């Protein structure tokens, strides 16, 4: 035992001595770290932000908290070198605005036409723990997509499970049921969902979507709809109704989103085309709104925002603010490098690119926390292909903080993971694991 202790002490002394031999020169610059966490704002209790040196050097870091700012000092050196650099400390700001404790997302290989394993997962934000909510092992290997937690309620969820025996799965208060929307009412399948704040209705878009593959351009995939409509499902009667102004052949309507008071539905709409693939550059979706009262849509849609050169998707309202994705054309911005997040003030109609959030690469699907103080969105800025999640603070006055990459136990996990994060949504509690419940639906 004594010998063991002596060996351990000798080893520690040796290690200490080797560290002490490195001489550090001070640098006034912040350290070149990956991801760039300098100056980001994080919620209290967030899992630690782990980073690497961008150039792969070895490093150590120390943190000092002064008030609501964490100052991180980084010392970096080359392996085997006796000299290193001590960089100027960089700040990480800590916000007292609470954040929902979980984010739900789908993990999938960057989508081409087929898939093998995919699933909906929940990530606890105070730790690095990720757990499956439901995987396609429970649905016979079919695609699971378009999950949605109304208002971030962990006890209510819907998602689509495609393939034989598939349909839309509703998980509510411990009950699970499946309904194939294509067999009800107007026989239209559901795609992007929006659950009404009252909980009674769900608006879906019904899309006929196709992927195409450019021969030689730097964009690997193009996705477009041949046609799309909006449908409304009444969960009390399991009936589906159409409203002709948003269910016709002249226009393509998609991405429904309820206003917080549930009195209007935002959606995106473009004129139909006989050859969408050919005309895709000329298809620009506008943001529209439709009134809703007493369980039905009323009147004609009105245009909230439109452009001849830009196309909008994924409107997500919070209070008077509406965050959306804007791309050059089309309806599937995740494959468009120019896609950015924009913020619309619905009171004055002013819209601006949310430059604080955007990068040179794709920014796309986004959602608000339940208190509207945080947004999570997906971005391809890390490698241009595999979407990763970023979180930013919102001050309620139209300004976002610098976003931070969802931290992982090791930064390298972001490089090594071969799946993309898809449709992130904040959830107010642990959504649980539903594989068994869902597999029973498919066993029937």
């Amino acid at each position, binding site marked *: 035992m004594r010998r063991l202790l002596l060996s351990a002490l000798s080893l520690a002394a040796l290690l200490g001595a080797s560290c002490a031999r490195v001489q550090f020169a001070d640098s006034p610059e912040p350290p070149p770290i990956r991801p760039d966490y300098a100056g980001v704002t994080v919620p209290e209790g967030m899992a630690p932000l782990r980073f690497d040196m961008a150039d792969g050097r070895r490093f150590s870091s120390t943190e000092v908290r002064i008030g609501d700012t964490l100052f991180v000092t980084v010392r970096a050196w080359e392996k085997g070198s006796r000299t290193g650099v001590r960089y100027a400390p960089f700040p990480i700001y800590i916000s007292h605005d609470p954040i929902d404790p979980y984010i739900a997302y789908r993990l999938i290989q*960057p989508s081409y036409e087929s898939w*093998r394993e995919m699933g909906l997962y929940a990530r606890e934000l105070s730790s690095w723990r990720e757990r499956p909510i439901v995987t396609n092992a429970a649905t016979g290997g079919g695609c699971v997509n378009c999950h949605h937690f109304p208002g971030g309620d962990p006890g209510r969820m819907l998602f689509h499970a495609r393939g034989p025996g598939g349909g839309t799965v509703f998980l509510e208060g411990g009950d699970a049921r499946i309904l194939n929307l294509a067999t009800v009412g107007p026989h239209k399948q559901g795609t992007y969902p929006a659950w009404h704040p009252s909980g009674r209705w769900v608006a879906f878009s019904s899309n006929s979507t196709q992927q195409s593959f450019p021969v030689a351009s730097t964009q*690997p995939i193009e996705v477009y709809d041949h046609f799309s409509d909006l449908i409304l499902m009444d969960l009390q009667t399991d009936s589906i109704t159409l409203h002709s102004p948003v269910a016709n052949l002249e226009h393509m309507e998609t991405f429904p989103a309820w206003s917080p008071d549930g009195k209007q539905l935002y959606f995106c709409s473009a004129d139909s085309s006989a050859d969408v693939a050919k005309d895709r550059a000329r298809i620009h979706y506008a943001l529209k709104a439709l009134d809703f009262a007493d369980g039905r849509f009323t009147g004609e849609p009105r245009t909230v925002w439109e452009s001849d050169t830009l196309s909008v998707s994924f409107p997500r309202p919070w209070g008077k603010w509406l965050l959306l994705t804007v791309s050059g054309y089309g309806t599937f911005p995740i494959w468009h490098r120019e896609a950015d997040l924009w913020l619309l003030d619905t009171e004055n109609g002013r819209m601006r690119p949310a430059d604080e959030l955007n990068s040179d690469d794709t920014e796309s699907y986004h959602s608000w926390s339940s208190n509207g103080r945080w947004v999570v969105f997906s971005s391809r800025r890390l490698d241009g292909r595999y979407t990763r999640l970023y979180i930013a603070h919102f001050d309620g006055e139209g300004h976002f903080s610098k976003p931070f990459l969802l931290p992982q136990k090791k930064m390298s996990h972001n490089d090594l993971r071969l799946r993309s994060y898809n449709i992130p949504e904040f959830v107010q509690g642990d959504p649980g694991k539903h594989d068994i419940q869902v597999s029973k639906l498919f066993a029937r």
Partner: protein
Amino acid sequence: MKKAVTPLLIAAAVFTVSLIAQRYTLICQEYDGLFLAVPDYFRQLFRKPLPLSHLVTDFLTQFFRFSVYGPAILAVLVTAVFLLLRRLLSAVGLQLECICALGALGLWVWTASRPTVLPLVAALLFLAAAVLLTLPLKARKPVRMKDRHDLSLSSAIVLCAVGALLSFPAVRRAETWAKVKHATAYAQWDLLLESATPERAEKNRVLTPFALLALNEKGLLADQMLTYPVTWQSDLDMAEQGDSYESLFFRAALYDRLGCGNESIHNLFQLSNMQEHGTSFLILRQLALQHYRIGNYVLAEKYCRILERSSLHGQYVRYIRDCMAAGEPRPQDAPARLAEAPLITHDPLRNILLIENEGIHSPISLERVLCTLLLRRNLDGFWESLDRLTDRSARLPRHYQEALLLAGAAQERVDPQLAEQYSRFQADFASLSAKQLHKRYGTTYWFYYIFYDQQNHTNP
């Protein structure tokens, strides 16, 4: 010393036979395998039944990339199973080497027709656990046959196992396919043609497109295409074969050869969904290479980093990084170009033309276009393209000349002997049965043109 004879015999037999009969099968197990020191790999692994067996199998399979290592590892595994069985039986008082040899070699022969060595590894781990459990047991006096008898029987069992494995049609088929796959992945066209002969392609139609690609690469497609059992266009391009493993693998290779990295990557991603781990070493290597070729160095580097998490990719990763260091990444296309970029279609011929229009020229394109037109029986299109795209003074390949005879065009470019054969064909056409004609003219374009039904692509 006597105790070492049987295991040595088994090891030698397994190594030699595997090296001869399963060399490429084992190499291709590495292509489809994966072992990465990354969290997602382990998470997925431990969701499977028998995770330890999968882990050991995946780890060992990495080494199959080198042609001698696979047979050597297999020999060690089979011998270890034999030794553990022997130890187990001796613990219960039986010393019957022939039974142990039968068990170990039977498992070897059965595993030979499986896609991985998992059954062998699982058996080995199970036996190792059983031996550990029996260690505290007091050894019983062994009941044994005479050594001489036991050794003769064991030798006979080794011979039987070797004979069984060598005569197993599934093992031979797998080896042929593996050789074709290896040759395609590394552009070894002579090796491919040596393996995918017309006779073998007759028995296994999936070999035909690969053989035709090899002929195309060697500039012999228009001379020898119809020596293979070609009955419709899809035998050339696999366009109608759906998304089978073979067709995705073929299309990934074809578009790579045509210089269309995007479409090659598309097919590699599709292929990855057919792999047990959602990807494989071969796919990761190809993704790194293809992304380097299309100038997407960021993604090429990502796949390099992932490959670095395996045991044996240091050299490959260095190669890709050296290439990138010497090259220039491709800048992103302007949005206006992206919006108008042509899209891949379901028509392989149109795709080749689109690729050419994008300024990507491949030495195999022209011959492929002309042969596709021939297989479509589009003689007008063929003649127009031939006239426009080829040197009028150059010697024409055999099938082009046959097509010209059929079309009655440019007879001056046709070899007189071939013209004579065509006259004989015309004379025989009225008098001979389809079968007789097939025997005499089955490798000519005239026969293909007249007899193969493009709807049903049936034989006459």
